[in-house]
């Protein structure tokens, strides 16, 4: 593909300058680090065993007060052999959004549940379990949500395959 096939003006986004929000989270000393990838909002990453502590702090501390978990999902990074769990937190009082990212190994995908912090996490985590097979430690009701209980495999994993799948041939243009 030549460069003329690409919509102009779309090369590489400049990484956002570290915002005040990220700086104040890093100052908490809860093992949070600046997000390594490219995100369009303030973002931090944290090791999986420090996740619950950080999220609890972000929810309870009136300085942050992230009272809504607006979205939680996973991204399958097959080449790095990890799942990236992303938590989009939102604060209704401060009107700020924050991305918290966690990497967990694909062969042992276990993360702590945050359903004790936000109730909706219980069902957003069930969706991630259903489609990615991420097991949430301490989840009150971990079971399939869309697929049947006896379904084999987790469809949104990149290496998922079953007998009914259609393979797509790339169309030469």
């Amino acid at each position, binding site marked *: 593909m030549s460069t003329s096939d690409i919509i102009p*003006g779309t090369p590489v986004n400049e990484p956002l300058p570290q915002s005040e929000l990220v700086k104040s989270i890093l100052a908490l000393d809860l093992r949070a680090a600046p997000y390594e990838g490219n995100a369009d909002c303030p973002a931090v990453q944290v090791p999986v065993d420090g996740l619950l502590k950080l999220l609890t702090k972000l929810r309870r501390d009136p300085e942050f007060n992230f009272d809504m*978990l607006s979205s939680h*999902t996973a991204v399958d990074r097959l080449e790095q052999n990890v799942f*990236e769990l992303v938590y*989009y937190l939102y604060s209704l009082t401060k009107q700020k959004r924050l991305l918290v990212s966690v990497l967990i190994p694909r062969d042992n995908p276990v993360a702590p549940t945050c359903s004790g912090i936000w109730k909706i996490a219980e069902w957003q985590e069930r969706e991630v379990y259903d489609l990615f097979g991420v097991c949430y430690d301490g989840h009150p009701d*971990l079971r*399939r949500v*869309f697929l049947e209980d006896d379904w084999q495999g987790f469809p*949104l994993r990149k290496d998922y395959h079953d007998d009914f799948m259609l393979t797509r041939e790339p169309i030469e243009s």
Partner: protein
Amino acid sequence: MSVTITSLSERIRIPETADSPLDTQEYFINMGPQHPATHGVLRLMLKLNGETVQEVIPVLGYIHRGIEKIGESVNYRQFVHLTDRMDYLSAMMNNWVVAMVVEKATKTELNDRIQYVRTILAELERIQSHMLWWGVLGMDLGAFTPFLYGFRDREIITDIFEETVGCRLTMNFIQPGGLMADIHPNFVKRVKEAMTYVKPKIDEYEELLSGNVILQERTRNIGILPADEAISLGVTGPPLRASGVPYDLRKVEPYGVYDKVEFRTAVGTVGDCWDRYWVRVEEMRQSVKIVEQLIDNIPEGKTMLMKPAKKIIIPKGVFYSNLETARGILGILIASDGVSDKPVRIHMRSPNYNNLWAVDRISRGSRVGDLVANVSSLDLVVPDIDR
């Protein structure tokens, strides 16, 4: 480590105690998947004690189509066509959110014409969606006339869509970089006519249903959702505002041209079914107001800024956008590798999936009949839950 995977059959098992008297026995009963009050193939397992609801367990997946999986093998323009199969009553907004995240990631500046037309179309969509909801709520609570009224008036707006878009339900009109086509020459005239038609109709709705004693009895103080629990449950849209949280993305993070129009956010006080009803009726009025402010001032300009023949490649990273549909906040997450024109992962944060789980909270301790009012007041669209 305490990860235990359960199943539905384990979840609904009631321990057998042989000597329990009949009047205190708990039992499960199925509501749906084919039940008129669930507006689609939604199955609710009700744990009952007599007629008192003790727990509601939604069972999903009857129309799960794997849109997120399909999304990984199509490009962004093709993905737009899948989104209006989700919440088919907010198809315009579903298209818009995909366009929004792609434009945000590629840093495309849009001209005013595109923004004006998008905003008008989204507000028309909101009006027709709330009209349908109003009719269906009436029917759920035993009044058939609102259903006919709602569908009759909704036709006026879907006719406008049919003329400009070519479709009545699945729009595919808002594309990354602009619009699929320019608006029809009759568009402005017909929208104005429709607004003069719709405005007195909303008052008529109020006269017909709002003051009705049966509706009042069946909605007032039924299914109360306190504000703090609504936030924790991830409820957004009219149900959240009915609980007294004035959170409307059109106000808080204005997109389109919402920052140029004047409108007010309807906010409830109690968070019961009646507040959710009232908030939506008021939103219809505000939407009419928005359309009327914009329709005369659509500026000239191009309606497509990205050449359709060119591939759209999003820079490497994770991008998130959201907007306010008729039912709440629709978010979209795209993870891109920066090389392919297809996403690595595409996730839709659908408003209905997140609003659904409040049913359990607001129905506990109430009667089965009130459950129908609760489900109806949350205005669930099942294809958006299952995706």
